[in-house]
């Protein structure tokens, strides 16, 4: 997927003006966010579970090379194939080759964010292969030609009427009305596809290093269909998505599922240990695991950002975020929106393209509080802001202009000495005095006009605190 992180501001303004979208955001808030809070309150030792989850992920990421080797060895031992992909293009070329070798006509997909990163659908379609999303939400947005709105509820912004039109047009059958009828209609349409699909591409909520397993969590059952029907199963994962042991799954599933939907468990948790057994009636003959980097090593390299790789993609930080809840998922311009997206995306695109995202936060801390693996998102947003301000050593990557950096440098100098501070505030008072209206600065000139665009700025007081203090101390002494 081509990132459009640069246009965050315009996309956000558009979302803010869209009444229908604002209503959908309320659904996200009321549904997922409250459900998560209730589920956490209802769980014994919730904090201890989060602490354990964080410890497991910290340990895994600190030993990522070790555990990835272990995972690859075990997948192969189980009769599967492993492909390490440096980026989306590399991963796509593996899938294309595999499809061509096996004369694949139809690929079914079960929700995979990594395949969104790859832009896989488009690539396969160019090769003349039919690609069908099977998560109902993903299917709806595929028919609409859009990208997912929310990582757990991809089509949350579509109305029933819009869905009815899309399904009726695609199936050439009567237009249905209720959510129930529409779901039945989609069930029939997708079953027909399941039966003829030769290959499935799924994500992986977890990969287990010591057993070479992957785990899929769904409510709909498409993850099960995708691992039961087609001849070939391809699972694509980001390289950080693993945990060491099967025994870790209980803790990880508990925190993931509660944080994602507020459920105690999803309808289906499917563990896949490779291709089907030779004497099984169904299940894939071939299993392929793609482990993708795609810029994740940049997070790994930077110790101040490494923690972002602990993310288990539950979406809780998004539902908790007051900014996300207003500007919505599409504004963020890449696969992962919301608070965690504001860290992952700019690191993927470079700060020059993505520096607006870390700025779009009030640093209220709701994301940190919600995160099941205790990722300190606000700290990293600040870190990225500071990296933006300092400027990348590579001038081509610099997000802030020379003038801006110099201004802040001067500011810093000014703030560090009493004398310079006093001199600065006197200059400030003189410069701002023509703009003063009733004690407020209501309209600043460019390039600082943004400061007063939506609120007034308090004008400097006629006498500074320092001056008043000196005057009064003197008056007291004189008495």
């Amino acid at each position, binding site marked *: 997927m081509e990132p459009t992180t640069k246009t965050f501001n315009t996309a956000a303004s558009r979302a803010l003006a869209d009444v229908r979208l604002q209503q959908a955001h309320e659904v996200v808030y009321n549904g997922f966010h409250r459900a998560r809070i209730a589920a956490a309150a209802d769980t014994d030792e919730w904090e201890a579970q989060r602490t354990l989850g964080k410890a497991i992920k910290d*340990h895994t990421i600190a030993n990522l090379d070790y555990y990835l080797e272990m995972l690859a060895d075990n997948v192969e031992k189980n009769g599967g194939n492993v492909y390490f992909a*440096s980026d989306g293009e590399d991963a796509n070329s593996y899938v294309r080759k595999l499809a061509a070798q096996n004369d694949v006509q139809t690929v079914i997909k079960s929700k995979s964010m990594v395949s969104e990163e790859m832009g896989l659908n488009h690539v396969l379609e160019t090769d003349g292969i039919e690609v069908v999303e099977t998560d109902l939400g993903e299917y709806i947005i595929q028919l609409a030609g859009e990208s997912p709105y929310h990582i757990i509820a991809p*089509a949350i912004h579509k109305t*029933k009427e819009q869905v009815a039109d899309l399904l009726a047009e695609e199936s050439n059958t009567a237009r249905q009305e209720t959510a129930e009828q529409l779901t039945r209609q989609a*069930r029939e349409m997708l079953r027909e596809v399941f039966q003829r699909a030769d290959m499935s591409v799924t994500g992986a909520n977890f990969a287990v290093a010591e057993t070479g397993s992957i785990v899929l969590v769904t409510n709909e059952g498409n993850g099960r269909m995708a691992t*039961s029907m087609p001849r070939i199963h391809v699972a694509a994962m980001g390289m950080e998505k693993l945990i060491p042991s099967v025994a870790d799954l209980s803790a990880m599933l508990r925190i993931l599922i509660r944080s994602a939907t507020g459920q105690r468990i999803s*309808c*289906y948790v499917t563990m896949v240990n490779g291709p089907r057994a030779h004497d099984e009636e169904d299940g894939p003959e071939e299993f392929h695991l793609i482990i993708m980097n795609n810029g994740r090593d940049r997070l790994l390299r930077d110790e101040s950002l490494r923690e972002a790789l602990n993310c288990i993609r539950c979406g809780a930080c998004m539902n908790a975020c007051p900014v996300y809840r207003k500007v919505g998922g599409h504004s963020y311009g890449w696969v992962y929106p919301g608070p965690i997206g504001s860290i992952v995306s700019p690191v993927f695109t470079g700060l020059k393209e993505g520096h607006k995202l870390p700025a779009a936060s009030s640093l209220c801390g709701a994301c940190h509080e919600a995160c099941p693996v205790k990722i300190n998102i606000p700290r990293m947003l600040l870190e990225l802001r500071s990296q933006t301000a300092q400027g990348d050593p590579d001038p081509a990557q610099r997000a802030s202009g020379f003038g801006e950096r110099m201004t802040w440098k001067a500011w810093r100098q000014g703030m560090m000495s009493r004398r310079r501070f006093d001199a600065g505030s006197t200059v400030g008072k003189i410069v701002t005095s023509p703009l003063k209206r009733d004690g407020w600065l209501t309209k600043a000139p460019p390039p600082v006009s943004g400061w007063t665009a939506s609120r007034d700025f308090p004008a400097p007081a006629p006498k500074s605190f320092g001056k008043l203090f000196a005057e009064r101390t003197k008056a007291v002494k004189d008495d």
Partner: protein
Amino acid sequence: MDRKAFISNISESLGRTQSPASPGAHPGRFPDFADAESAAETARTEAANRSSDLLEDAASALATTGWNVHRAETIEDVGDVIASICRGIDATKALRSGHEILDEAQINLALEREGVDLRDMNLDEEMSPDERSDARIAHRKEVFQTDVGITGGDYVIAETGTLVIHPKKGVSRLTSLAPPVHIAVMKRGQVLPSLDELFLLEHVDIHSGNRHAGMNLISGPSRTGDIEATIVHGIHGPVETHIVLVG
């Protein structure tokens, strides 16, 4: 990309030249496999000792996750329960797994009496590879035209109201998935208190070479909330799920 190059890039990103020989103590519940083995033993004994309580806990949790829970005092009562569920949904075609508990319950007889056409999906050992692949295709067609799938299972999890099934020979992945109604038969003694015990036992089993091609955790009917956040059952899997608890 070459595996070696991929891994060494990661080592380098972590500030070292190669993977460590050992990752150090794992912070999970069982850093040591010997601990896991003895914990698994304890878990099995406790589940057996508390089987009656666990069955009650399971019954209420299963109902919460959307299962229709039926109780049968003895295995002989199961046939009637299943027959009456089939009657309730006007089933004419059913498919069963090879789980032994279904033989013990003699469901074949019960369904024959009910006039339900019951099949299984076993592939004949003697078949040639071509015949097997034809049989697989035929069987797939069939499974999508069946009214009800009947299975046993490996465990029930009391914490979450979950049925656990390992797919294997005789236990098709589709029997519990494709038909609109799924009926499972489980008995006292098969209930584990929580996911902790389940994954602990699985961990120990896999280490002891007892590995299945997969594992399915099933918690009620298939569901979606993707259209205006309205919950609807039965998008890809069953619309309705029943579980008969024996004992």
